[in-house]
């Protein structure tokens, strides 16, 4: 199982990657929108964990792009964001995200959502 983790906050990426590895999920870190699209095509991850606010293509743009392509539309996307704006949360789901998890939630909550999306019991 491998997951792409996209966020320009390197500390956050390192923290979540470490957590995923402990759960037996390989983590591929990327730090902006363009990298996210490039590495999605290059590595075909089972899941993408995506931040909204990123340089070189924000989360909305990345989502639109991923979901518009038949090569990547099937990959589940969890948006993991520090946004407290309910509109943002609605908008990511409208853009095709499969789930929204707040950054303030603990990692186990994120893992629960990942398990649901990947069919891990």
């Amino acid at each position, binding site marked *: 199982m491998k997951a792409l983790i996209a966020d320009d*906050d*390197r*500390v956050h990426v*390192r*923290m979540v990657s*470490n957590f995923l590895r402990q759960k037996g999920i390989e983590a591929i870190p990327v730090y902006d929108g363009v990298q996210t699209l490039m590495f999605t095509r290059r590595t075909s991850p089972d899941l993408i964990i995506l931040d909204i606010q990123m340089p070189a293509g924000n989360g909305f743009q990345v989502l639109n792009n991923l979901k518009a392509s038949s090569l990547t539309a099937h990959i589940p996307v969890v948006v993991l964001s520090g946004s407290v*704006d309910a509109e943002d949360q609605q908008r990511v789901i409208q853009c095709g995200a499969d789930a929204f998890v707040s*950054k303030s939630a*603990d990692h186990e909550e994120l893992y629960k959502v990942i398990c649901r999306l990947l069919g891990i019991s």
Partner: protein
Amino acid sequence: MKDDRKRCVPAGMDGYVSRPVQPEDRFAPIEQLGLAAGDAAKTLKDGAEDLIDTASLLARVEGDMKLLKELVELFQRDLPKLFSELQDAVTRRDAKALESAAHALKGSVGNFAARPAVEAALRLEQMGRRGDLTEAESAFQALAQEIERLKPALVDLSKEEVRK
């Protein structure tokens, strides 16, 4: 005694206070658990526990102190850029840039469960979002102060725990 603390956390301990009890330590572990410790505790404590929810931070790094040290170093490296972007936005009175820079900084201090700094950054983010920058300068100073308190506390925390 520091070894005791380190051994107890993975074993499921929720808080640790060593004897003789220091007044500022007494309520900190209780507060980390989110239990009401009364107003007395607030006047007693003035240490790192006030700045960082250490219990929650340690849970996030799964008790891995080497990782914590690495994260603190990364934070120190990235902070100047985030901070100057924020300062720029305040100086230029650019609401959109302020919202975005404050949001990034909020995430950055949020990684370390540093609640007072998160709240200070959130105030700026909301000002940017509302487009009302009348209080931005003082809110920025308040955040700068929180970050100045947070930096040494984080370094101490990572040093203290890695030493063992």
